[in-house]
Each structure stands twice: as C-alpha cells, then as structure tokens.
C-alpha cells in the first residue's frame, strides 16, 4: 500500500531531514511511526501527502508512484490518503456536520450524496447527537472525531494520523486510538505518527522508529524504543 524505496530528503542541499528510508506497509496494516522531535516524522508525512518532494528515492502509494507528482494530481492523492492532525483543522464558523459537508462540497459531490454520506460518517465516529454543534462547543476528543469523520468521507485507502492525540487527555486519546483501530478493522491502512510511548506500547502493532532522519527500527509487534 505504501512503499518507500531509498528515500532521502535534504534541505538547502545538505541539511539531512530523511536519509535512505525504505519500508513497505501492506494494505490493512496498522503501523505506528515514532521518533523524537526532529527525527523526520513530519517530513515523511508531508512527502506522503504531496506537500514535499523527496530529493532521492521513490515513493509508491497504492501502486501510484507519487515521487514526481504534478500539482494538478495532488488533490486526487489527498482524496486517497486522508489526514488528521493534532490541531484538528476544523472551520470554527461551521458546525461539525457542516465541516464534514464542506469536504464533500469542495470536491464536487452532489447535495444528495452529501446529505447521505455526512450523517453516516458522523454516526461511525459517534457524533450523531452533537453534529450540529460548533467546534468550540465540544471537547478536544470530539473535535478530533469530527476531523476523522471528515477524513472518511472519500472512503480512503489510507488514514494518516499525525499526532492525533497530542492535544488530548488520556481518556480522549484512548477513544481516538480505539476509533482508529475500528477504522482499521474496516480495511483502511492506518499510519499513526506519534511520540506517545504509552499508546504505542499498548497497541502491540508494527512500529517504525525514526532517529535523526534514519529508520533505526522496524518491528512487527513493536515498542517505543527511543
């Protein structure tokens, strides 16, 4: 599903962000990408969603080589790889439901489809009773669930979660991880980027560990080792 082959990224010619990264994530896997700040996790995420280009190597997503992606193809890539972030990235002047609908509107879906899909994904994430509330009227965990709902509207093959629990307390963090596991159980490949040791250790899933831009560990049932 996701294949990195000898991928390197240098800034200003010689500042190393990532060096010789190679790994393969199979369809339906749940993988955690861990590492300290500055290890290269964000750069890797940016390359996966087409925000950055690799300096060397090849990245293939779902059989699609995205290494030299044209700017007009990036929107289509982003409909395949749904992304959620630590800061939720919700529009504050829209309700949770409207935030989800907005994602469908900007990609040209019909009103009929929007009215069917949006409440469905809100139910999947357990927000059907709060979908008419504004982001500031709900908890951080609920905001993150709304962001996950928005990411699900295209039935993506991959869900990229970049520090999704970074702004949450342990109870809400657990709920979000449970939701990610539920989505994974439907067949969606999940790549969880985190530096939360407790979550990674409890998951008992595959762990990729980055350190100073290098992949230092790839364990099938891994632990947070740094």
């Amino acid at each position, binding site marked *: 599903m996701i294949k990195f082959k000898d991928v390197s990224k240098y800034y200003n010619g010689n500042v190393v962000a990532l060096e010789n990264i190679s790994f393969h994530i199979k369809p339906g896997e749940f993988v955690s990408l861990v590492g300290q700040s500055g290890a290269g996790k964000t750069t890797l995420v940016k390359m996966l969603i087409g925000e950055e280009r690799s300096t060397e190597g090849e990245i293939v997503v779902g059989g699609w080589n995205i290494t030299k992606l044209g700017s007009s193809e990036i*929107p289509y890539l982003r409909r395949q790889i749904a992304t959620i972030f630590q800061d939720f990235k919700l529009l504050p002047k829209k309700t949770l439901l409207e935030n989800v609908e907005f*994602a469908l509107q900007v990609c*040209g879906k019909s009103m009929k489809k929007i009215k069917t899909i949006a409440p469905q994904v809100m139910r999947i994430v357990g927000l059907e009773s709060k979908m008419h509330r504004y982001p500031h009227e709900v908890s951080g965990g609920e905001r993150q669930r709304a962001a996950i709902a*928005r990411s699900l509207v295209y039935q993506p093959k991959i869900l990229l979660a970049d520090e999704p629990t970074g702004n949450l307390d342990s109870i809400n963090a657990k709920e979000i991880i449970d939701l990610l596991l539920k989505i994974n159980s439907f067949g969606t490949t999940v790549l969880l980027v985190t530096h939360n040791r407790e979550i990674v250790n409890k998951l008992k899933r595959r762990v990729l560990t980055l350190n100073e831009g290098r992949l230092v560990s790839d364990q099938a049932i891994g632990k947070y080792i740094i």
Partner: protein
Amino acid sequence: MAFFLSVSRIIKFSFQDIFRNIWLSVVTIMILILTLFSVNLLLAVKAISAAAVDTIKNKIDISLYLKTDAPIEKVTALKTKLLNLPNVGEVIYVSQEEALMKFQEANRKDPKIAQALRELTKNPLAPSLIIRPKSAEDFEPLIGELNRVDDAIIESRDFDNYKIMLEKIDAITKKVSEAGLLVSAIFILITLMVIYNTSRVAIYTHRNEIGIMRLVGASNTFIKAPFLISSMIYTLFSLTVVVVSFYLFLNLLQPYLETFFSGYNFNILAYFSNNFARIFGFEFFVAAAVNLLASWLAVSKYSNV
C-alpha cells in the same frame, strides 16, 4: 452536471468572500468606481474639447484679398474656380464697401478708429473672398490648395496666422489626450494594486479555509476560482454603478453645454449613447482584464497555504 454544480459552488463561495469582507469589498468597489468614473470623465472632456475645437474652426474664415480694381466677372470666375476645389464648402464675396461697413460696425465703440476713417479720403480696405471649408478637418488641405491657386486679381494670401492658430488648437487637443492617457494609466495602476491587495487580504482571511480545502483534496481551480470570480463581480457591479451615475451626471451637464455650444448641434448624452457598447464594453474588458490579472497574481502567490 458536476461541472455546473462546481461552478454554482464557486459562485456561492465568491459571494461569501465578498460579504465576509464587506468593508474591503466596499473600498475595492469605491476605488473601481472612482477609476471608471474618472476615465469616463476624461472621455467626456475629450469629446467636449473636440467639439469646442470644431466650433472654433468653423468660426475661422480664410480670406483671399483681391485687387481693388478687380473686375466683377474675374472675381466671379475666381469664385467658381474656388468652389470647384475639393475641400471648399462656401465662398462669399465681400466688396470694398461691405468690408468698410463691417469694419465700421465692428469698431463702432472705438472713437479713434472712427476718427481715422473719417480723415481718410478713400476706402482703405480691399475686396475679398471669404472661404469656408467643408469641415473643420479640411482646414490644412484647404490652405495648401489655396496657396496653389494662381490669379492676377489676387492681392495677398497670408495664411500664416490661420496655420499658427490651427497648430495651437491641435497642440491643446493633443495635450488633453496625453493628459487623459496619463491619468487613465495612473488609475489603472492604482486599480491593479488595490485588487491585488484585496485578493491578498481575502486569501489571508480565508487561509484556514484554503488550508482545509487543500487538505481534503479540493482542486487548485476550485480554490483559486472564487477569488477570480469575486474580482469579476466587483468589475461588473462597479461598471453598473458608473453607467447609472455617469448618465445622471451627463443629464445635469447637458443644459450647460447647450448654452456653451449655442447654435451648434452637440449633445454629450447622445455621444455616450451612440458609443455605449464601444465605450462601456471596452471599459469592462479592460477593467476585467486588469482585475483578473491582479487577482491571479495574488492568488498564485498567496493561496498556497
């Protein structure tokens, strides 16, 4: 179907942009209105000055002075010859006596001239042929033609004064046009900068929205188009306001122009109405092109959030 859906959403987002930044939109529209109004004002000034120049030219007579003893049959022959010239509209013979009468009439309030005429024993004025061109534009070729006419009864033909006067009028007309072009260019530049900044501020206001649009896979066209459509809406709205207000202004101006051009058929309202599509159509295309260019530059530079 999907295309029309996207277009309708882009238009909806454009109106949202305009209303969410209502004061910015008002300022932008005001600047556009001022620019377009000034351009039309300059056009009106140009039309009025052109009409004034034609009026002045029509009032200028070219005189060909004849010998005092010129026999009337030779004068008539010369008159006919002149009337056959391509640019001549009218030729009037003014005899010595008529010339004196006109001179006395013109100077009746000046006792010194009246006294000087009384002291002269004979009429000092020469008979003449007054020549008028077919139209104001025919002045210069007419002078050239008259310089080539050869006849023994012609006493003098000094057209230098006319030439200097025409050159001065043409120089004024040229300066009015140049000033108009310069002012228009300045206004176009101001518009370009205002629209550029409007788009920039609108993008800044919507940076979160644009970021989320990119995140969820909205196409570049879908992200950029609302800003371009907004600039077109500004142009269309401003031009409509200008057309209405400018016609009101011309209605107020017309009575004064009628007094100024008394005896001449000049109507500024008719001028704008006859050239409506050419003037306002051209203004729309230029304003729209300038606005699109400014928005495109701003959107290309700042929308990658």
